[in-house]
């Protein structure tokens, strides 16, 4: 019995300890990155460079995914809506679902995979090859130069990527509607914008900043704590994708709940 209890405790300790350590690292990194980002000197040049690397290089993937997403959404829902005589609601339905939920969430999940793993692998390999130490002995604060700039770039670029993905998803929805029937471009987009209100756009836009912060933070934290050489870098990149995706989903749930409480739904 005592042995069983000890085994249970050991199992719980092995399972929970890494979780709490990881949570503590994220909290510490989050706080420090905010502090470093608001105190001078500011690393504008590196932040712009990261915006380019993170944002511009992600446009093709995010855009293509958005387009297909809108197309598929319409193709899947059109038969049911037409069956119930609600075919005219298609533009409104697709715009609300894309802008409020599907667009930001799918874009953030893609970015968690593409950007989060990239940041983690880059910082991780810099860590294991002593490049971060080299930066520090050059009189550079590596936390400010590497971490704060990447988190800022994610917070700036992921909202822009989400808007871009939403636009292309709406274009995809328009194309999807035109595959089975003919609908005028102006008519479609008039219906789209008529259906959208501030309460649909605002929470969704705010959410994307938080997604950006979470993706950047997780990528940097996991990379910065890489250990055990190249194997450790691979593991931290992998962990970064898993944790960032889970964070995005949890943040989505929490923000949706708060939006509802504040009357935005």
């Amino acid at each position: 019995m005592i042995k069983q209890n000890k085994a249970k405790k050991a199992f719980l300790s092995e399972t929970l300890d890494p979780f709490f350590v990881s949570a503590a690292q994220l909290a510490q990194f989050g706080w420090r990155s905010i502090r470093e980002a608001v105190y001078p000197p500011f690393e504008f040049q590196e932040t712009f460079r990261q915006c380019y690397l993170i944002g511009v290089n992600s446009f093709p993937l995010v855009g293509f995914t958005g387009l297909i997403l809108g197309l598929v959404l319409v193709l899947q829902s059109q038969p049911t809506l037409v069956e119930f005589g609600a075919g005219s609601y298609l533009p409104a339905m697709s715009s609300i679902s894309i802008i409020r939920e599907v667009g930001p969430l799918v874009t953030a999940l893609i970015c968690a995979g593409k950007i989060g793993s990239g940041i983690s692998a880059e910082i991780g390999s810099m860590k294991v090859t002593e490049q971060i130490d080299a930066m520090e002995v050059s009189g550079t604060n590596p936390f400010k130069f590497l971490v704060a700039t990447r988190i800022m770039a994610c917070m700036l670029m992921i909202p822009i990527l989400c808007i871009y993905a939403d636009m292309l998803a709406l274009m995809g929805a328009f194309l999807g509607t035109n595959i089975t029937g003919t609908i005028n471009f102006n008519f479609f987009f008039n219906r789209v914008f008529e259906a959208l209100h501030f309460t649909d756009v605002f929470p969704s836009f705010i959410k994307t900043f938080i997604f950006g912060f979470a993706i950047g933070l997780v990528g940097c934290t996991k990379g910065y704590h890489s250990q055990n050489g190249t194997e450790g870098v691979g593991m931290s990149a992998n962990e970064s994708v898993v944790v960032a995706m889970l964070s995005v989903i949890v943040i989505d749930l929490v923000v949706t709940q708060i939006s509802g409480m504040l009357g935005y739904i």
Partner: protein
Amino acid sequence: MENAITSEKPVAQDDKKGEPVIIVEHLKKNFGEKVVLSDFNLIVNKGESMVVMGRSGIGKTVLIKCIIGLLKPDGGTLKVFGKDISKITRRDLDLLRLNIGFVFQSSALYDSMTIRQNLEFPLRRQKIKPMKGDLNKLVRESLISVGLENTIDLMPSELSGGMRKRIGIARSLILKPEIVLYDEPTTGLDPITSKEIINLIMDLQHQSNTTSIIITHDVELAKQASNHIVFVMDGIAYMQGTYEELVKTEDPKVKPFFE
């Protein structure tokens, strides 16, 4: 113990050289349960070229990382240019680091930057220290000093191990530091390239008269580049002396190193 000195207190060697620039007293550093440095004492004088030897994992790199403030000691005092490293502010530490070059074992060149950008990086970051002359001139001079001026626009991945070491040395010397810390500069290199790196270190030392601490297992490097050797064992500076003194020792822990 012949002429070599076993030391538990800091011992200044070769007083003619100049005033102490690094003073390590009772330095302690642990990693969890593992005690790496237990009571380490050392004095490095200005202009001295000190070689630190000892078995792998004994704490040699930890020592120089403590000296430059990359690791925080768990006990004892560590003064560089009279300033206690563990008690100064981040800003003062950055200022102090302007006078300390660090050559990493892995060279630690920034993979995403060209050689030019690698060398420019420390110069661009030093906003508080005015640099005369333009960046390009300094970078070219630095590359010429290590004999690699034609690599200026290459990426680090395009260079051999020996060339990377040379660039690492050039980068650490570009701010013209008074102290240079070398972490195993010849490890992993073939004998010819090792010889080239040893000659380069000696040439640079003669040109700029820097104070050096060289971590190495390479007896040839120790013989040629040192005027003082410290042998690290059991977390302390176990034995100190010149190469000639240490090579004659009969101490069973040290002798195998020089055979």
